[in-house]
């Protein structure tokens, strides 16, 4: 049981979608799919779980916006007050554009780096690249059933994958 999992290769996106759906229906939970381009509906079948990126983006946005507003308020009201055309020092309309920009910046940075952290990136090694035909610059679509799946049994899983009509099935070593 030292393997990473069993990987089946398919020739087109539709076949992979059907295979993923079947595997899910069969009770497999630890399945991964690899495609050369986004396939609509695949993420819902394979992943199924919600991620925390929206939460990161919201927190980053709120933090960026609040920080941007506070910075302007502090400089304009406390640190370096200047009378500008008789307007109040705390002139909120003038602070909005920068607050908006920093909200967007904070949300974008939080979403980007949150995505890297949740995906465990950057990463220099991944077992799926051990599969000889694993190449996503071509029309190849892969479904990998992880060995750590509760329902995984090398022989039975291989037989199941063969019923899905794959091009090829390989064992992926760690």
């Amino acid at each position, binding site marked *: 049981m030292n393997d990473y999992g069993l990987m089946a290769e398919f020739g087109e996106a539709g076949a992979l979608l059907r295979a993923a759906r079947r595997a899910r229906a069969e009770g497999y939970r630890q399945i991964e799919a690899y495609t050369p381009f986004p396939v*609509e509906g695949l993420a819902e079948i394979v992943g199924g779980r919600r991620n925390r990126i*929206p939460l990161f983006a*919201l927190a980053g946005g709120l933090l960026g916006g609040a920080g941007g507003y506070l910075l302007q308020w502090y400089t304009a009201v406390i640190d370096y007050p200047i009378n500008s*055309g008789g307007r109040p020092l705390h002139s909120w*309309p*003038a602070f*909005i*554009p920068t607050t908006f920009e920093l909200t967007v910046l904070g949300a974008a940075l939080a979403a980007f780096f949150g995505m890297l952290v949740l995906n465990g990136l950057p990463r220099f090694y991944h077992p799926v690249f051990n599969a000889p035909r694993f190449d996503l610059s071509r029309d190849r679509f892969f479904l990998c059933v992880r060995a750590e799946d509760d329902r995984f049994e090398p022989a039975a899983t291989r037989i199941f994958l063969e019923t899905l009509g794959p091009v090829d099935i390989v064992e992926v070593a760690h």
Partner: protein
Amino acid sequence: MSRASVSRLKQSASILAVTALILYLLGMVLAAQRFFPSYLVVWLFCLGISLGAMAILLVHQLTGGAWGVSLRPFLQAAMESLPVLALLSIPLLFRLADLYLWARPETVAVSGLLQQKGWYLDPSLFRWRTVIYFALWLAIAYALSRGLTQDRRNIAAPGHRLGALAAAGLIIYAVTITLAATDWVMSLTPVWRSSEFGLLVGEGEMLSAFSFALVCLGWASRGPLALSLSHDLGNLLLMFVLLWAYLAFMQYLVIWSEDLPGEIAWYLPRLETGWRGVGIIVTVFHFALPFVLLLSRRVKRRPLMLTAIAGSLLLAHLVDVFWQVMPAFRPGDYMPRWSDALAMASIGGLWLAAFLWRYAAQWPPNAAIETPGAVHHA
């Protein structure tokens, strides 16, 4: 829709039309002078939905997408109600002096500013411009509606012919709505100028049309919407809300920063009097609340929530139009009057009857709805 529900729809449309027409005549006879400001508000609101629907349909001809296919029947019927609004503009054109300071010779005689602006703000020129706007809008709407109907009935594949119409139509819409917004709304405060006002009005029109179509979709769809479609529609609604807020705030920020008499003349009666509260309501319901709600993925994937947000946005847009127009007639007095309700029931009723009638006229059902993949590109 079944055959029975189509005839029921047509029946209620005629009852609505007759009732609204009686109320309309009542308003014209009983309270002509007081009726016209309310008339202008409701007329502009309905015009916004029809023109906004036309603009969204034009955009969809260029972009394609399942979102537009699901909303198309409602947008098309709303666009096809435009002739009613063209007819309803005629009484307004004959009562310009009740609405606009620059149309009153005795006011112009004592105002140097109005004399200066007289080359543009002139009643007969104003009438001609309105005729030209409607001629262009009706021509675009007619060509588009013919193309869409042929498309639906699979008579001909309009393909790039409609694409060219869409590109030209959108350019014409952008120019004419800027001029029309200047004529109909901005000139209520003749001293005021703002170069982005037309864009703000046009965007508000598209937002109200999109919200209206979403409400209709919620009302007409029997089966649940596909989650991804609901999500897309929610994102588009959020885009309209953000763009509206951006334009509205930018106009305010520029005018607030400059603080020039000719420019703040628009905001003073709308923000420094009793109307301030109405402005806050518009800010909350036209921007803040829908913005926060539509950030959530769960809300966007719940069609009922989406319908509710669209409905409240539609109401907020009516309040927005009220807030733009009415302070010119009732400074400081923001309470709606019975003439407003009468205008809403009569002009809104006539427009809605036209919409229902045009919607029913689409039966037998739209072939394109059953195959959402059938979208064509320019």
